[in-house]
């Protein structure tokens, strides 16, 4: 089933009209917002050193834009080193649930100017509003320290962005931003949310998925190593034995 953009637009406008007619007091929720990516697939190939994906879109009426990119969730263990008999050893630890493997955000103006904290909190926009909760029983103070350490570590490896990236408006209606994916980008399905905000309220949201997957030789090797690990091990040994033998023959005289 396919809609032409034109048809879609007509249907969309009709919906907007109906909704704004029925809810005259509320701000029009479904404000026209169109978004797309330059690429819906980030392919990690053998030569992959990171890439940028262009996100672009248009709004019908002026407003502010916030973009969030969230990788698949996973559980994370955070460990703290303490000095023990002169050396630094991992001692205490905590597990966090639902930690995104990747998180980045972007906005056209500083987020705190665009919307107040409660709105950002409700929609879980920005790193500070991610609700990853420690499942380990630890004090409030520790929880905060571990949480900050988790964010800091993820920022250090480039998987959480340090500060929101910039969204630039080309006119009052067209906007664009680059989403950066570093070389160590985890694979999986990413969710990109684009929020249109007007007068401090979310006027419209668009969600679009992005798939990060390994392709080519490196993907096949990884897949093979996990699916047929015994065979992989045997092959690794055989490769080593053969190359060792070839080397000894090749350099026998030399």
């Amino acid at each position, binding site marked *: 089933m396919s809609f032409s953009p034109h048809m879609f637009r007509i249907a969309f406008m009709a919906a907007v009209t109906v909704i704004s007619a029925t809810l005259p007091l509320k701000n029009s929720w479904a404000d026209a917002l169109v978004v797309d990516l330059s690429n819906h697939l980030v392919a990690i190939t053998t*030569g992959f050193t990171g890439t940028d994906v262009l996100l672009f879109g248009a709004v019908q009426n002026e407003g502010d834009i916030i973009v969030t990119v969230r990788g698949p969730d996973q559980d994370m263990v955070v460990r703290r080193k303490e000095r023990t008999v002169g050396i630094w050893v991992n001692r205490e630890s905590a597990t966090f649930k639902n930690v995104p493997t990747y998180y980045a955000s972007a906005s056209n103006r500083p987020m705190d100017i665009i919307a107040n904290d409660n709105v950002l909190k409700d929609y879980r926009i920005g790193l500070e509003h991610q609700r990853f909760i420690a499942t380990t029983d630890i004090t409030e103070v520790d929880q905060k320290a571990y949480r900050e350490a988790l964010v800091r*570590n993820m920022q250090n490896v480039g998987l959480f962005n340090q500060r929101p990236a910039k969204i630039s408006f080309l006119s009052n209606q067209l906007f664009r931003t680059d989403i950066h994916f570093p070389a160590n980008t985890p694979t999986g399905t990413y969710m990109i949310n684009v929020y249109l905000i007007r007068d401090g309220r979310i006027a419209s949201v668009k969600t679009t998925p992005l798939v990060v997957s390994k392709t080519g030789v490196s993907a096949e090797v990884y897949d093979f190593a996990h699916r047929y690990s015994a065979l992989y091990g045997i092959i690794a040994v055989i490769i080593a034995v053969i190359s060792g033998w070839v080397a000894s023959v090749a350099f026998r005289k030399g």
Partner: protein
Amino acid sequence: MQIYLPIAEISVNIFLILGLGGGVGFLSGLFGVGGGFLITPLLIFYGIPPAVSVATAANQIVASSVSGVFAHWRRGNVDLKMGLVLLVGGIFGSTVGVWVFAWLRSLGQIDLVISLCYVIFLGIIGGMMLFEASRAIFRTRRKGGGIRRRKKHQHSYIHGLPFKMRFYRSGLYISALLPLVIGFFVGMLTALMGVGGGFVMVPAMIYLLGMPTGVVIGTSLFQIIFVTANVTFLQSIQTQTVDVALATLLLIGGVIGAQFGARFGSRLKAEHLRALLGLLVLSVCLKLLFDLVIEPSELYSIMPGNL
């Protein structure tokens, strides 16, 4: 030029890894050592995850041992029976080692244990080498120096042990328990440190077992092949941390480097070589010790998974 390593899941500079393999290969050709004890720490310093470094180094050592063993085999310098007994111990030891490795990894202590093992062993070996070599350099050389070993027919506690076996090639009649235990211990080191363990095996064979020096290197290489092969296989199954792409790059660099090293080495005096190797081993040891003792800039570390 960057290449994405499929198992390590990071992008590395292909020439840097080739150079690393080449450099260590050069040194192993120069000094006649396996080089696993240098490869693994250097990979970790470069940023390869320790687990991947250890498992991949084991895979690479399979190749370097195979290429080394042929020359010894042709000259009859492999005590097959002794090698097999050591190997039985080694297979058990490395299997236990891989299991301990996985267990320590889940506890978050594997990096620490790898570092500690390196500091202890490199410290002892490097210190002894440097001490012995500098004595040889500064003192007048004693006649008929060479390595002193236990006399064959001297009786000690070792001869009281049960399960005696005759090792014709080494001219020994000793308990099989001793080589089994040595093999077991070195096998564990292979799994935990990503080394062949020749630097422990060779002195143990000479001083503890009393094997003739002529068959020591060949026999050690022979059993290292199978123990490292076992580690490669088990790590592949248990932790999926063997990176064939990384191993192949190290291998190519290593083979070429070793040829140059061997040629260059023949121009240097043996005690100078040993002193240099001692210094090198000690500096790797100090760097690792330094990292353990100095307060890290980041006290927290993260790892995917559950407690």
